[in-house]
């Protein structure tokens, strides 16, 4: 059953700035939805509207079939984890976790049981009598999650909850959040600008661009079939190589001298895309085109090669290639590459939509 429905939701701030023109999204029970996008695209705005911290200026928000547009955050049955945790500094961990229950009039015994359950799940038993000031960043993060979990809400909301942790802890917490969410099966809306986090956590991803949902789908759908050039560049790291070209009866003309044969009905200006990991090294006989190597990044398990396409155009076209294992081509040398047809992505040059 659908748990959370956003119908034509929009937000115009009092100063007249339209942060979100219109978004439609319906979320199944227990689904993990991640909102990604560059800074300022309206992720937090959308999340805060669901939370009830920001007024909804257009459309309807339904939680379990009830319209909650005008309900106070506390009456929406949601729980939120903030970027800076927002723990009450003068309360112990236990009091922090209990506070929401206390305000709802839950009995002392029941509160105690719930806190103990959640504390056990998150490994917070030892820390219950401490204050937030006496905890490490990772522990605070856990307490913030615990505070959300004791309430047993219908929807969890996370606003970049891991961005204040160091890289290692972030990976660890990411895995943990995913496991907990599976176990609790609570519908979750999660905001991040980290696309690795987005890909690994999400059942479905919503890519936002300037307040518009560019594409909604599973991580693999977005990776395999990005609907727009924006999604193509945003999902995947390093991002997809995108080159301007013309579709003609001969195929895709990338420049006066370089054309890739292909049969397609479309005629006109396009963008041709291929991911760095799909380019393959080859020799001069079989290669589709060649690259002048400009920089090499060795990461051990893989090597990133940055170069420009040798296509005779005045405007140099930068290309990134991702090869597995160690490679050490000389800077300035020529490298031949093949681009397998099944990995091509074609976009309309004007509308930026996938062809």
């Amino acid at each position: 059953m659908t748990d959370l429905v956003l119908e034509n939701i929009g937000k115009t701030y009092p100063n007249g700035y339209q942060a979100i023109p219109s978004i439609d999204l319906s979320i199944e029970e227990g689904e993990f939805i991640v909102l990604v996008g560059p800074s300022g695209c309206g992720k937090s705005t959308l999340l805060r509207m669901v939370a009830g911290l920001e007024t909804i200026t257009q459309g309807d928000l339904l939680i379990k079939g009830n319209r909650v547009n005008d309900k106070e955050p506390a009456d929406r049955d949601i729980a939120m984890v903030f970027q800076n945790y927002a723990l009450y500094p003068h309360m112990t961990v236990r009091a922090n976790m209990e506070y929401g229950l206390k305000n709802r009039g839950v009995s002392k015994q029941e509160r105690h049981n719930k806190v103990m359950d959640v504390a056990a799940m998150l490994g917070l038993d030892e820390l219950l009598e401490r204050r937030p000031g006496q905890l490490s960043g990772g522990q605070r993060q856990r307490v913030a999650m615990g505070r959300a979990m004791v309430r047993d809400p219908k929807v969890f909301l996370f606003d970049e909850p891991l961005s204040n942790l160091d890289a290692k802890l972030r990976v660890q917490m990411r895995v943990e959040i995913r496991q907990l969410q599976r176990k609790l099966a609570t519908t979750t809306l999660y905001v991040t600008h980290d696309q690795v986090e987005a890909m690994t956590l999400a059942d479905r991803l919503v890519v936002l661009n300037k307040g518009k949902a560019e594409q909604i789908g599973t991580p693999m759908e977005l990776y395999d079939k990005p609907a727009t050039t924006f999604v193509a560049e945003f999902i995947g790291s390093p991002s997809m190589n995108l080159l301007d070209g013309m579709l003609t009866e001969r195929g895709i003309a990338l420049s006066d001298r370089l054309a890739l044969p292909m049969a397609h009905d479309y005629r006109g200006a396009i963008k041709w895309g291929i991911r760095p990991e799909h380019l393959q090294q080859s020799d001069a006989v079989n290669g589709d085109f060649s690259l002048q190597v400009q920089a090499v990044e060795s990461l051990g398990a893989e090597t990133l090669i940055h170069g420009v396409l040798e296509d005779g155009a005045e405007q140099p076209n930068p290309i990134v290639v991702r090869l597995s294992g160690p490679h050490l081509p000389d800077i300035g040398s020529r490298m031949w590459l093949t681009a397998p047809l099944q990995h091509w992505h074609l976009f309309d040059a004007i509308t930026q939509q996938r062809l």
Partner: protein
Amino acid sequence: MIENRPWLRFFSHLILVVGVFLVALPVWVALVGSTQPEGSFNSGSIPMWFGDQGVQNWAHVLFAEAGSTLQIPVWHLLLNSLVMALGITLGKIAISIVSAYAIVFFRFPFRGVIFWIIFITLMLPVEVRIVPTYQVIANLDMLNSYSGLILPLIASATATFLFRQCFMSIPGELVEAARIDGAGPIRFFFDILLPMSRTNIAALFVIMFIYGWNQYLWPLIITTDDTYYTLVMSIKSMLSVPDGDIQWNYVMVTTLLAMLPPVAVVVGMQKLFVKGLVDAEK
């Protein structure tokens, strides 16, 4: 700055010793004077060592009468002062914390204007508005009463401003977390805001208590009945004897008694006070 130059050390210690001496000498004179027999100041020299009348003097002043023109014992004046000082302090804190709460956390029309009006009253201390205030208090029939002593002094722009700054430094996320946790305005105030501004309240308490305790002009003007006299203003009236000698030994006892409560408050709340000024956690 850690330097180890002998003459520098000597010099800084010298300054400190001179400072301590300057501050302590009058207190010493008062302490010694409070143990002298009647009339020992009138010989023209100031006694520098204890006399033998200490216990009698203190007992007389505290429980019998303050002497000179004052026929009531000093414990009564102490009580009056305490009521006034505590009344002013608590009143100031209560009013300013509530108004700061309204100004920072609620959106209502003319919010900014109201804040600036409060702020501008900083330019109007008691002395400036004393005549109209007297008129109001007189019309309300509050001359010679505790409420008359306290009420006109409890509005405080300074405290409102301090609480406003303190509240504005509370992160917005915290306020939002409380909203999601179902804390309404009243709960938020008592459960979150009040405990979080604990140290600020303590610092203000110290400052305002001393301010209230040292009030001189206002009590002098509105009290004519000596059951409402405060300690600080009475010292002056003990010095204005129409004829005969000033009873310096009694004056000294009263002076010392007037100094004790502020000292007690400062010493007792020192830790919180300093914390409130430097504002550690948050």
